[in-house]
């Protein structure tokens, strides 16, 4: 083999090895960090294991918001207008959190069926309904077209 060929081969081999190592590590890291998304109906149907880290999307149920007087704790329900999940959160809610507004919560279900949220996300565009919330609505047979028009004005 000519020297310059050998050099080229070495460079190509170097790139190939680093790329495949990177791909392997990436896929491993990916598989470790997937948060599955569920709708309130799926949660009510018992599809989620206790303690499993998941996301739930839905609307904050009208009249469900309660705030403890002597601690940080707040309680509310996420609904897809068919089923609902009670949610507990110890922290400060985002500015756009309101009843009747779409939200996504991250956390896990405890043994009493209560969803303990570690993070609550509300969207900064009020006209905007996230894919997750929309999917939850559609899965429950609610017409999202009307929902989003209602939200707009």
């Amino acid at each position, binding site marked *: 083999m000519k020297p310059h060929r050998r050099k080229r081969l070495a460079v190509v081999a170097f790139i190939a090895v680093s790329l495949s190592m990177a791909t392997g590590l990436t896929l491993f890291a990916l598989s470790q960090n997937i948060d599955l998304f569920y709708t309130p109906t799926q949660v009510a149907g018992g599809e989620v294991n206790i303690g499993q880290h998941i996301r739930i999307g839905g609307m904050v149920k009208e009249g469900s918001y309660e705030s403890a*007087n002597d601690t940080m704790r707040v309680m509310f329900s996420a609904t897809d207008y068919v089923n609902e999940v009670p949610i507990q959160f110890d922290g400060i809610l985002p500015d756009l959190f309101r009843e009747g507004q779409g939200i996504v919560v991250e956390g896990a279900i405890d043994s009493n069926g209560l969803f303990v949220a570690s993070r609550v996300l509300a969207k900064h565009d009020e006209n905007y309904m996230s*894919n997750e919330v929309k999917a939850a609505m559609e899965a429950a047979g609610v017409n999202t077209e009307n929902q989003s028009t209602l939200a707009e004005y």
Partner: protein
Amino acid sequence: MIPELGQFSLILAFCLSILLGSIPLVGAAKGNQLWMSLARPLTAGVFVFLAISILILAYAFVADDFSVQFVAQHSNTLLPTRYKMTAVWGGHEGSFLLWTFMLAGWMLAVSIYSKSMPIDFVARVLGVLGILCTAYILFMLATSNPFDRIVPLPPQDGADLNSALQDIGFIIHPPTLYMGYVGFSVVFAFAIAALLSGRLDAAWARWSRPWANVSWAILTIGIALGSWWAYYELGWGGWWAWDPVENPPLITWLFGTALIHSLAVTEKRGVFKSWTVLLAILAFSGSLLGTFITRSGLLTSVHAFASDPSRGVFILGILGLAIGGSLILFAFRAPLMKSNFGFDLVSREIFLLTNNVILVVAAASVFLGTLFPMFYQAITDDLISIGPPYFNAIFIPLMSLLVLVLGVGPMSRWKKTSVSYLIEQLGKVALTSLAIGVVLPTIILLQVSWVAIVAVTLAAWIVLSMLKDMANKTANKAARLAGLRALSLSYYGMQAAHFGMALMLIGVAFTSEFSEEKSVLLAPGESIDVGSYNFTFNDTQAITGPNYVGTQADFSVSKNGNELGNLNPERRIYLATGTPSTEMAIDAGFLRDLFVTLGEEKENSAWTMTIYVKPFIRWIWLGAIFMAFGGTVAAGDKRYRRVRERYLKREEQALATNLQVAS
């Protein structure tokens, strides 16, 4: 009537950019001087009409013309004027107009600062940018016209600008980010022009470099501004969330960083040509991808605009045509890009190649993590999200590796460096860095923190190897100072940017590792310790702003009994929409930030609140400033201005040799 003028002006800009995207390109292919020379005036025309368009939109905002749908959706009579003017980019339609206007601005800059380039090259660059501009304006006219009217009955008042956007960050972050993003279109157009003309030489690399450096510098600032804004506005104590809309700028930045390094090799050594062209295409694709993700509504993100599927399809079309077209051209022209492999396995070329491989792998894994939920949903119909742990697991080791190479690269020589030379030069530097890294944080913190040890070692490695290199470069000069003065601007630019990397590394590591936060419920008069600081909640008072009402709280902060001052976070309700908004109070410092965000009021005027102590967080943005400064300084190197003479001389010489051979 006036909004129609804006629309009319937009259509004129469209017509001119069609001409710009065709005539100069054909002229360059046929060698028609007149047609090529139309590129500059047409560019000026496109710029002027887009400028008129965007000014008219701003005027419609200032004049509260709510018959324009975009204005009605994003403004309100109570909105302060500075936000009315900048609400132009407060939604999809207007922000795309800003995006296109930025492109026109870059095109104008190219047409002005290209006197040193041959006319056919300028014609091709501006022609390619003209095609892009045509596609963007067509997209606006077809799917998202900012001048659409509400007929027959316009609303009395507008729906108001999102309260989270009413902030200085909103005024400066989007334009800066867009300017950096769009700048890579210029570098892309240079690459395409070089492919079209078949002239992929050192001159092309030298012409591209200042543009790549400046775009990269602006993008760096744009991303840093976004991070800083999110930090103080959203009040969650973080500075980067790996959000699907934050990631494309980062992907573009990583490709761009690889590109500016690869361009250096292409310019100096004439190798890596095809790789450099590919990176230019990739960096540009990253910027289009960002637009696509933000505007198609395909991914869930805090930044996403209200979505419309037809827009997503349209942008995907632009994306497909631009990337597909350029890659096909790339394949056809591949034989042109043969480089001579004139370097050894240990050489500066190889270190820069390693830098490129690491950066591209990092960009690819961020890309994968960002789009994976979308692919996953397409295949399995299940919705998933990829959390920050994935990105951190990939990113931190890669960047640490990058920093190791960063110390060796500038010290090594082109073509061939002996390993023993590198060990001789850097052996002591490495040992000293390690010693500083182990001893310094341990003494100061009185504890063994692995994160701090690794971070300080790596930062010391960057700084010490840099100093050693400068010492070497001036060692043979009679006077050190004169020697330092003789070093080129681009060398100083490189060192400044690398120093910025060291600062950022310390900032990221220390903030992530040593931040403290407490969420508590406090009544007036109560106090709490966070880290070594004591926060006392004194009282609250009602406040009234131009378009909001709210509550302001008063905190006094002390450390070891010394009063440090007061913090006054606010909780506002914006009148037009009834949206609440939290304004945190920050005491910024070189070594630490203290900040308080208010939650809600509970019994006995007690409030929920989160209190943060964030050490070294400013170093992250300070690092970005150094990087951007370095990129800009390097672009100002005088050798970029002398290209034309040298280029013409070389052409003459080549001609003379050809003639001699012929005779």
